[in-house]
């Protein structure tokens, strides 16, 4: 059966992609941010996942307000970068793990989760930036992807606990998938930021740091928080952090944190990264 080898969390701020595009990686504003991801990139290189399940939100690029799926799952052969207003970014298209996507959709429906099914869809920075942060800029991506889109823009948005529950179903789908492929799950978004209203520019480094601890040690606490609490603590757009719970819900209660990084502000956002493995199956090399 397929195997879950790690849970990764990361911000997906669009300015990160723009900074790479403009060659600003090593400027004083950005270097400390990008350097913090080096251990995450090394982890990925060492553990060689075959498939990356990426949970993110579309930011008014692939979906407009005419149709807003609460949860959508991609099952396309290929996902091209969407034109967000500046033209599609020059990064390679992502190859889809089509067969697993369908298996996951089956498992979801059988578990009373009813996602929108997307056979043809372009993708925005929500998935692009996390892929670039962990895999850099290869000529071709060395993993196939399964995009999970979560609506965190148009209210009512889903409950944090629902995201966590979806993670459990994802785990079940991976462990019932009859190949020996290695899976990672990327929970993306956040951390604290607010783009709208007079509180624009709100960041909360203390809450962000606490989140990076709790996501490993006390995910139930994060799953039981209300949407309003997320908005209050992390800002109106920072509430998207709840998407990390899909990733965390797929992992065991006990995890080992391999790497962690926090930097503020990346553009207008508290930016963070985490790499976790299930304790029971953690790789021995660094398990000391």
């Amino acid at each position, binding site marked *: 059966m397929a195997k879950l080898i790690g849970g990764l969390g990361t911000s997906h701020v669009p300015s990160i992609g723009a900074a790479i595009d403009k060659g600003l990686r090593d400027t004083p504003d950005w270097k400390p941010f990008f350097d913090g991801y080096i251990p995450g990139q090394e982890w990925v290189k060492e553990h060689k996942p075959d498939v990356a399940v990426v949970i993110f939100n579309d930011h008014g690029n692939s979906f407009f307000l005419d149709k807003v799926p609460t949860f959508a799952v991609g099952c396309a052969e290929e996902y091209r970068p969407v034109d967000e207003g500046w033209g599609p970014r020059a990064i390679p298209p992502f190859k889809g793990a089509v067969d697993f996507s369908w298996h996951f959709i089956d498992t979801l429906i059988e578990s009373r989760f009813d996602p929108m099914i997307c056979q043809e869809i372009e993708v925005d920075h929500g998935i692009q930036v996390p892929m670039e942060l962990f895999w850099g800029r290869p000529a071709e991506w060395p993993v196939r992807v399964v995009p999970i889109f979560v609506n965190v823009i148009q209210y009512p948005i889903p409950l944090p606990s629902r995201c966590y529950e979806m993670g459990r179903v994802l785990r079940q789908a991976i462990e019932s998938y009859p190949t020996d492929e290695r899976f990672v799950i990327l929970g993306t978004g956040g951390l604290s930021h607010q783009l709208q*209203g007079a509180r624009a520019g709100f960041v909360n480094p203390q809450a962000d740091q606490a989140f990076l601890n709790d996501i490993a040690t006390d995910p139930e606490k994060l799953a039981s928080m209300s949407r309003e609490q997320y908005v209050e603590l992390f800002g109106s757009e920072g509430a998207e952090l709840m998407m990390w719970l899909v990733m965390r819900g797929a992992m065991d209660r006990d995890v080992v944190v391999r790497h962690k990084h926090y930097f*503020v502000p990346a*553009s*207008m956002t508290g930016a963070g990264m985490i790499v976790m493995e299930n304790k029971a199956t953690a790789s021995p090399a660094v398990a000391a």
Partner: protein
Amino acid sequence: MEEKPGQDRIPDTPLFDRKRSLGGYRINKMAMGLSKPENREAFKQDESAYLDRFGLTPEEKEAVMTRNWREMVRLGGNLFFILKISAVDPVRITEIGAHQAGMDHDDFLRNRLGKKV
């Protein structure tokens, strides 16, 4: 679309709820259009005519044409859509933030984002 004061439970934090989504539909649809190159060109050539295509009210048009971000958001514009205006008429996201916060840009960077400027 009038905003009742105190309606948002978290101060100065407009949630994109049913009321805002309904009220802001025209502005957001217009802005969503800017993800097509031909529409960006049309916006550049004749902004007023482009906005008319989406049936914007005079109030909405005024907010867009004066780049009054705070007002666009008050009218139901959502940043993820209206940000596309900055692809045609460049402005930094931090300037949009500072404008909504009613702060000078440097002051915004220092006091909201904790940057040393």
